[in-house]
């Protein structure tokens, strides 16, 4: 039975040879089959002669290595540990090479249910692992599925390797869907929001393109890159003696700021009466929080953390994020480190008719910015935000530049200025001591309420993980930032910021990517995940169960896309009509989603819906036990809106 298809293929060839010279030009079975009508093929063998080998035998098997194997070698050379992917035929060759030639280890194939989840996993993974993982997406359609997650990666300056399948040679495509899944220029689909893309012409070209892509993705400003993996290149047999090589990756350092500019910045900062440090997408490594603390302490200056990364330890006495607006307002020098949106840091634009704008800073305030954000902007999407002038603009990776800035400040610091700084620091510490007390007082409001307050939910989680090694992998602005206010966050992996691009559906898969990176460290990953976000890609729960990725999802189930609820409410009130109708199209009720059952259906331990506050703590405790065994768990908490 197994030979039957082979016989038929030979018959195709035999029939094709009889059909005319145009068929004789074809070199593969696929094309012949495409261009040969059924009438040329006998329904079944007619005579013994039909079993004779054709004059030009169709090659049925490969006997050595194939292009996909070489591609695996390329990925191994870059120390890529995982490839997340929803399968697609345009990369079947590479997939087979990963699982058989590479024995599904470094890289390991991580099966996802949606290409958006593949890339969002890579997004979260990179921020915890400190290096990119790869994804494979199906030609055209898979790439389009993944595009929103690629955009989030780009906005967040997170490295990711996206490999998109393609059948580049039209004469090699099977008719029908293979054409629909191929393109002359796949890069154009995502070129507005990748750092670089490449469509290689041959395997050697691919190797050099992949290594270049990795190099670019991991050099600040980091970002996603996309390389096309051509199906013919994946499937071609590598003849013995073929010379292919994999370039060695540059051991590239991140760009450091100009010493002269840093000296100028140091002068301004030391002379300032009220310097303020604003940290954005600053931390990349464990050095990030360490150097930021050193900078704050040498200046005795407050830090206002915009929380795009884990920057300033949350309970450090110079972390004054809690009164950030007041700090910026009274500053005479603002130092912004890798700001995501410098204009927004320094200006308010109120959501009122006419969008009135006013500066947050006083006239005459000096602005220093260190970062690489503006070095990689694209013309179309507005993620680069409004232009904001700075008095001293310094191009350079802020984390790598900070030791040099600290050194310049120490050199500039006189005993008199040091006294001023110490006096300032004492006042700041006294003010900072009140933050925790204020947070506790506010957390107590609605403590026993149902739906459960986001403060209570956060405190209950913290109580269970405070003695563990952990990462809080989700964005928590929609929980009124309670984890930042109630938890002690110190290590560079304790948080990782949000999507930045604002594409909903980021949290659940990005947190799973973080959990994948944490797996080898035995860390507990917690995601306090909005219900609307989780429903964008609920299949991540299956991926978590299938690959036994330990993670605790706490569903912040406010049964709405609550931000949008507030927006529509605002419009109704502004237009003075139907103020009781803003729920239409913004709520996720009737029926309520049963997340525990959803999770169970995909093999994930779950509890809920929980709507009594006293039940939350014990539920989390039980779930943490599951996570410690190396499995995912989910708790559905019916929660307050914010």
């Amino acid at each position, binding site marked *: 039975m197994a030979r039957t298809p082979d016989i038929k293929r030979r018959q195709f060839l035999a029939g094709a040879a009889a059909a005319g010279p145009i068929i004789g030009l074809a070199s593969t079975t696929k094309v012949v089959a495409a261009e040969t009508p059924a009438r040329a093929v006998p329904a079944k063998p007619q005579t013994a002669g039909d079993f004779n080998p054709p004059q030009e035998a169709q090659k049925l098997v490969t006997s050595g290595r194939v292009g996909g194997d070489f591609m695996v070698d390329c990925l191994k050379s870059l120390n890529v540990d995982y490839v997340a992917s929803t399968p697609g035929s345009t990369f079947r060759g590479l997939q087979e090479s990963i699982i058989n030639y590479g024995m599904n280890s470094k890289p390991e194939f991580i099966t996802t249910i949606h290409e958006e989840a593949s890339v969002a996993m890579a997004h979260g993974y990179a921020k915890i692992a400190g290096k990119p993982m790869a994804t494979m997406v199906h030609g055209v359609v898979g790439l389009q599925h993944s595009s929103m997650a690629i955009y989030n990666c780009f906005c967040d300056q997170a490295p990711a390797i996206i490999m998109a399948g393609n059948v580049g040679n039209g004469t090699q495509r099977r008719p029908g869907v293979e054409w629909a899944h191929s393109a002359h220029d796949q890069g154009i689909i995502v070129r507005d929001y990748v750092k670089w893309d490449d469509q290689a012409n041959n395997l050697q070209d691919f190797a050099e393109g992949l290594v270049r892509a990795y190099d670019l993705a991991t050099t600040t400003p980091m970002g996603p890159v996309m390389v096309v993996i051509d199906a013919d290149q994946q499937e071609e047999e590598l003849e013995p003696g073929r010379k292919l090589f994999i370039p060695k990756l540059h051991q590239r350092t991140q760009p450091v700021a100009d010493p002269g500019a840093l000296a100028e910045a140091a002068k301004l900062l030391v002379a300032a009466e009220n310097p303020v440090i604003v940290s954005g997408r600053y931390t990349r490594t464990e050095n990030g929080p360490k150097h930021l603390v050193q900078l704050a302490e040498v200046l005795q200056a407050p830090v206002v953390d915009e929380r795009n990364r884990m920057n300033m330890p949350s309970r450090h006495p110079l972390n004054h994020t809690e009164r*950030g*607006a007041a700090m910026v307002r009274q500053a005479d020098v603002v130092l912004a480190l890798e700001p995501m949106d410098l204009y*927004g840091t320094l200006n*308010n*634009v*109120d*959501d*009122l008719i006419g969008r009135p704008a006013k500066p947050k800073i006083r006239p005459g305030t000096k602005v220093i910015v260190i970062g690489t954000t503006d070095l990689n902007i694209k013309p179309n999407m507005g993620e680069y935000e409004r232009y904001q002038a700075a008095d001293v603009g310094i191009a350079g990776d802020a984390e790598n530049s900070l030791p040099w800035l600290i050194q310049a400040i120490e050199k500039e610091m006189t005993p008199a200025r040091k006294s001023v700084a110490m006096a300032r620091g004492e006042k700041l510490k006294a003010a900072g001591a009140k933050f925790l*007390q204020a947070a*506790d*007082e*506010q*957390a*107590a*409001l*609605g*403590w*026993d*309420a149902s*739906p459960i*307050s*986001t*403060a*209570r939910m956060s*405190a*209950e989680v*913290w*109580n269970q993980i*405070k003695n563990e090694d952990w990462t809080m992998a989700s964005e928590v*602005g929609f929980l*009124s*930032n309670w984890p930042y206010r*109630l938890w002690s966050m110190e290590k560079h992996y304790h948080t990782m910021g949000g999507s930045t691009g*604002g*594409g*909903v559906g980021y949290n659940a898969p990005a947190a799973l990517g973080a959990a994948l990176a944490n797996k080898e460290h035995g860390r507990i990953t917690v995601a306090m995940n909005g219900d609307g976000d989780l429903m964008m890609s609920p299949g991540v729960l299956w991926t978590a169960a299938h690959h036994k990725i330990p993670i605790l999802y706490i569903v912040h189930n406010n049964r709405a896309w*609550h*931000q*949008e*609820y*507030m*927006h529509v*409410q*605002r419009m*109704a*009130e*502004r237009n*003075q*009509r139907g*103020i*009781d109708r*803003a729920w239409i199209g913004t709520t996720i009720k009737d029926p309520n989603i049963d997340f525990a059952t959803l999770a169970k259906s995909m093999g994930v331990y779950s509890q809920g819906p929980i709507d009594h506050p006293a039940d939350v*703590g014990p539920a989390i405790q039980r779930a943490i036990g599951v996570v410690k065994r190396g499995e995912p768990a989910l708790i559905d908490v019916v929660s*307050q*809106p*914010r």
Partner: protein
Amino acid sequence: MITRVWSYAAAALLVSAIASPVAFAQDTPRGNTANGKKLFETIGCFECHGYAGQGGNAGPKLIDPPAYPAFIVQLRTPRNVMPPFTAKVLSDQQAADIYAYISTFPKPPDPKAIPLLQN
């Protein structure tokens, strides 16, 4: 999809705007708490202030509310990013009902008595 979150700073401004050192108890109209609850949970109050009036990063707490005149001024002509509830969409009686309801929000427990907040 997500736009700028209403800022905590704006919320703080709202607190200062509606807080008043003067008591206006004699000016407080009689309100229907049951109707106030229904309104609170349908016309958007809970969205920023929470079902329990606990507040959050979208709006300040309403537990222990300011005196009624300050409340009604803020409701009708807010001084910050809070959207206005004009008389065209919310009558004076309805406003009084809401005020009656938010005045029933229980005072929070002492945070020092909550073990989870000692971490």
